[in-house]
């Protein structure tokens, strides 16, 4: 049982936090988890991404092809579109990305994270909408596992709105 994913966006969009939450949920279930972050030297506006591996065994933190890739901005889309494994899922932040993929061998989910989060009253929760979409593609970690982590890790006043955002992302696709 192994799941490999990449989260990529611009610094401040919460991509590394998403990776941490998934890892924390998987680690609580006894999985070996590896999160390898990468970010530029820029204080603002640089690329921020992470590669996440959930597995029974210990292996490479660097991913050849991922099961799930989340891209939050157009530059990330261009860099990672081709790294989705055949049969895997590419999740696209359509609030910021107007490009479309020509690939037909993968599942494509286009979701306006910012609009969905804004409608829920918290534009800043758009990364939780995105996380919901990612969790939908996973077997190892369930929606309830991630909710549990949010309840434990977040400030109490932020829990409700982020849980709602997470569910909205999860339930966006059937």
């Amino acid at each position: 049982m192994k799941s490999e994913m990449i989260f990529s966006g611009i610094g401040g969009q919460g991509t590394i936090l998403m990776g941490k939450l998934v890892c924390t949920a998987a680690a609580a279930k006894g999985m070996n988890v590896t999160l390898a972050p990468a970010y530029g030297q820029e204080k603002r506006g640089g690329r921020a991404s992470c590669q996440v591996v959930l597995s029974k065994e210990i292996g490479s933190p660097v991913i050849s092809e991922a099961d799930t890739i989340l891209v939050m901005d157009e530059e990330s889309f261009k860099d990672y579109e081709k790294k989705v494994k055949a049969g895997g899922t590419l999740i696209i932040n359509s609030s910021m990305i107007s490009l479309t993929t020509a690939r037909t061998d993968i599942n494509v989910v286009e979701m306006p994270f910012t609009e969905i989060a804004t409608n829920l009253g918290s534009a800043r929760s758009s990364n939780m909408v995105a996380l919901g979409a990612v969790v939908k593609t996973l077997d190892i970690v369930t929606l309830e596992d991630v909710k549990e982590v949010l309840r434990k890790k977040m400030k109490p006043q932020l829990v409700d709105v982020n849980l709602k955002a997470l569910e909205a992302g999860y339930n966006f696709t059937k």
Partner: protein
Amino acid sequence: MAEKVFMQGNEAFAESAIRSGCKYFFGYPITPSSELPEYYAKKAPTEDLVFVQAETEVSAFNMIAGVAATGKRAMTATSGPGFSLGCEAMSYMAAAGLPAVVVDVMRPGPADGDILAAQGDYFQIVKGGGHGDYYTIVLAPYSVQEMSDFGRLSFELAEKYRNPVVVASDGMLSKMMENVELPEKIEVENNFDWAITGAKGREHNVITTCALGPEQWEQFNLDLQAKFNLIQENEQRWEEFQTEDADVIIVAYGSVARIALTAIKIARENGIKVGMIRPITLWPFPKKAFDKYPDKDYFVVELSAGQMVEDVKLSVKDKERVEFYGRLGGISPTPQELFEKMKELYTK
């Protein structure tokens, strides 16, 4: 078994060092090592630690030398540019027999370079770095668990041999987060008979890097060399993965060894029998590991233009059977990329 925590490599090392009785940290922040000083600074008020942000690495390295001379555990952490500045002190600590610990989180150079992962400091760390005939013990962790484990082992080895120990991490390993089992906290009360602790009621101890006269200085050096020989005999450490039946043995350390684990799997699924020797000590280099397999092909992978590969060539029977692949600039190869390279080299 203690509970596992999800933690970053740098922080795991710092927490482990604190739990291993290292109460003194002197350093100057530099990416990708900065979480180490940050962690010590944060914990200093509540854990009874001494933390100083020095004005430069030159000072930080000399500060740990000073504390180590008193027999207490002290460390610093830096990256390549800072390690270069500390090399003068490394030479003095090696000569004086001071058991300090230095973490070098390698990033791509030369000069400022970038802040991602690299292994281009191998020559500098493993071959001395400073002036004169000396070596430091060099440990190369490959997981956050080993970052934690070596937060203790590094001090034990440094004190056992009265020699500085360098932990060679890289920008991937140090920033990476994994679940890790931390060691139990211990209190360390060293009473070394050589330490400078105030000479009340006893003869003065002298820690020196100086002996007057060529004969005396040659003897000083011969004593050092005798110690280095002993370390080479006793402390070669490595780990083997599927080496017995392998036709090709990858040689890799640090985060590259992790990438190789998955590459081995892909290669075996595709009919190439690959194994790995993973050096855990870069100095002493684990020559003994290679004696067991004189008739195999070796494939060395590094995040450098080829540095450890020289030691591999010195350790094998036939250096013509050693191939090298390296990436530069902060790029780590994917497991698939390593497999493709092996396919090209080893299938006709």
